[in-house]
């Protein structure tokens, strides 16, 4: 386990360096910085611009700037935001917490709903639950988050059940269930398609296997057969999906947070683009990439905890039954 964590962390660092170099070069090469905007608006004289460039260190060559940025990053400093005039880390931190809370809520909702409906659907093929879940998959897979978010906003506007917006910009927002529910549901629904399809297929596959027969023959109640025996076998691909879903949630949070007023990382990245705040954007990109890589690693660890066959030292390597079943469903919309 430790070996896995170490090697994956090392790989992750390499990927992060590549990502940061690409992003840095892209943002710098196009000459896109907040000062360019300032100059085009004619709000600053040539001398002021030069002075500002010197202050922010924008007059050095690209490689030197990148090296400096990298060294600072290693020391835990991500520079200062052009727009917010504050260290990038202090801006990102509270928003990262909010987005992670939102992502956790969304993933929890999606997984629990999918597992419940999937278990009901897998019991008998062609049953009402089975057909219902097929419809749910089709609908949730093809409803984009932007549409869902606006419909939710319309519902929120019509009713007064949910508090909306107004979550403090600078303080930690209160994570009351009512406030987190609308954005979490919007984030979760497209994931339901992904998880439900896999849960249904995995469970019906598992229920047809011998060890389930054995469990039934022992006289276990059907509920125990499904939850304790079949589910464990069906969980593996779901956990692998989990890593993917994390990226999807982060992507989706850009829209959802903007529309539903949840001041997290997604909404922040939009602002960073709007104000062409390069240091902030670099910070957001790095944090996001780190979060996604960490999510993938987390999924891998979970996978090994769930499936003893994947742990290297015990039982000799054996090909997994079922192999890697291909996913039945496409990526949910951003």
């Amino acid at each position: 386990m430790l070996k896995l964590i170490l090697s994956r962390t090392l790989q992750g660092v390499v990927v992060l360096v590549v990502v940061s170099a690409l992003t840095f070069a892209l943002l710098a090469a196009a000459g896109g910085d907040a000062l360019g905007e300032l100059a085009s608006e004619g709000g600053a004289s040539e001398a002021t611009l030069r002075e500002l460039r010197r202050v922010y260190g924008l007059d050095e060559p690209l490689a030197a700037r990148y090296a400096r940025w990298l060294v600072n990053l290693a020391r835990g400093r991500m520079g200062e935001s052009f727009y917010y005039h504050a260290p990038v880390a202090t801006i990102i931190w509270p928003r990262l917490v909010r987005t992670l809370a939102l992502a956790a809520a969304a993933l929890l909702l999606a997984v629990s709903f999918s597992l419940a409906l999937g278990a009901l659907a897998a019991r008998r093929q062609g049953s009402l639950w089975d057909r219902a879940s097929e419809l749910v998959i089709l609908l949730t897979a093809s409803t984009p988050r932007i549409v869902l978010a606006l419909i939710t906003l319309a519902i929120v506007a019509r009713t007064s059940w949910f508090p909306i917006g107004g979550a403090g910009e600078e303080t930690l927002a209160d994570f009351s269930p009512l406030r987190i529910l609308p954005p979490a549901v919007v984030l979760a629904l497209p994931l339901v398609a992904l998880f439900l399809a896999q849960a249904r297929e995995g469970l019906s596959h598992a229920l047809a296997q011998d060890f389930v027969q054995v469990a039934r023959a022992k006289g276990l109640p059907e509920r125990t057969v499904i939850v304790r025996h079949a589910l464990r076998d069906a969980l593996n691909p779901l956990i692998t999906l989990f890593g993917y879903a994390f990226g999807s949630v982060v992507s989706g949070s850009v829209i959802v947070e903007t529309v539903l007023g949840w001041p997290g990382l997604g909404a922040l990245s939009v602002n960073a683009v709007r104000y062409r705040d390069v240091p902030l954007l670099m910070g957001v990109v790095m944090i996001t990439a780190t979060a996604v890589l960490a999510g993938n690693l987390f999924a891998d660890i979970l996978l090994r905890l769930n499936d003893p066959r994947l742990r290297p030292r015990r039982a000799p390597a054996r090909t997994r039954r079922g192999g890697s079943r291909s996913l039945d469903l496409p990526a949910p919309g951003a």
Partner: protein
Amino acid sequence: MTDTQPPHPSDTRDAPTTPTQTAWERAHAAPVNWRGRARRRLARRWKLIAGLGIVSTFYVVAVLASFIAPYDASEQSRQQPLAPPTTIRFRDSEGRWQVRPFIYRLRLTDPLARTYSEDTSARFPLKLFPRGHSYKLFGLFQTDRHLFGVAHDLSRRSGAPQNSDATQNATATQSATQSANASPPPPPRVYLLGTDEFGRDRLSRLLMASRFSLAVGPLGTLLAGVLGVFLGCVSGYAGRRVDALLMRAADAMLALPDLVLILAARAAFPLVLPPARAGALLVGIFIAIGWAEMARLARGMVLGLREREFVLAAVSLGLTETRILFRHILPNASRPLVVQLSLMLPAFLLAETALSFLGVGVQEPAASWGNMLVSASNLTLLGQQPLVLLSPAFAIFLFVLGVRLLSDGLRRDGDLRAR
């Protein structure tokens, strides 16, 4: 695998007359339920058919957008901001049924609260193929005909059709004589989806926006697919150095969520761009980002197919590597690649919508489904006219549903064949 022609439902190839059957068996076999069989076959690919239907309808409408749209998408009528959808009537205010559907003129009664009332003194029938603003159909033919519009007041042109009602007649003829002297006032406009803040017809904007939204995302997907397949093939067939380099680059691309990557790339370019250049930029970004996933898949397919016998056969025939790669291996990998392409399409269509919605994609006054949705994020407006404001959202939903059905159908079709 390469045979893409689906068997027709009424295909008789699998009639249960096999050579091993005796004449007696054939004579006494249960009658074949052809109709049921056809229905089952059709049901099996209803997704493919429905998806194809929806997607092609969208494209036909987009091509004919300026014909179907009753008004110019950027033409403002400042007197009628945020008008509700025009009611199309068959009964007039006195309860008489009319042959032709008609509308009443809307008047802005309270400019602040934006309340409108109908002026029931004159009926304006709807008309097919009226003249309107001129445009080029298919970019070729100059014309000014549109699908529908509003005709002039009936009572003015033909004297008074409703002779029975004297009092109404009097007002009608009065207004008729007034307007006969001055130039006749233009007929009111019909707004099937109401107007936006600037008094622009929402339906026309929705239609013109479909052109943009249906071009940028799909074009980006297609080109990204082509580039990805090319790089993937090269990576899978060419060998180690190139392979390692390309796949590490793909890894870096795939480490970041789509939308974050697109946003970061977008930030490198000026924020305000004319619509055509913004569209081209988005297509460019989609190509730069979308190739990675496609290249992964294509590489895997090529690696798998490279060892097959038909490739060996092609090699022994002395064919060149490029010919083997693109004429022999690629066609065999085509179906999963097409399915993957159809999975990428909604993602990029939605990315375009999202960027336009966030104000960094296609910007006003050009219309895109995304930037039309901006007014839907206004809480007060959304409370007043939710359905109308969300109409671009429904268009997006329907199109994405169509694409999903299509890709689902394609994949099922592929499974069937593989069996």
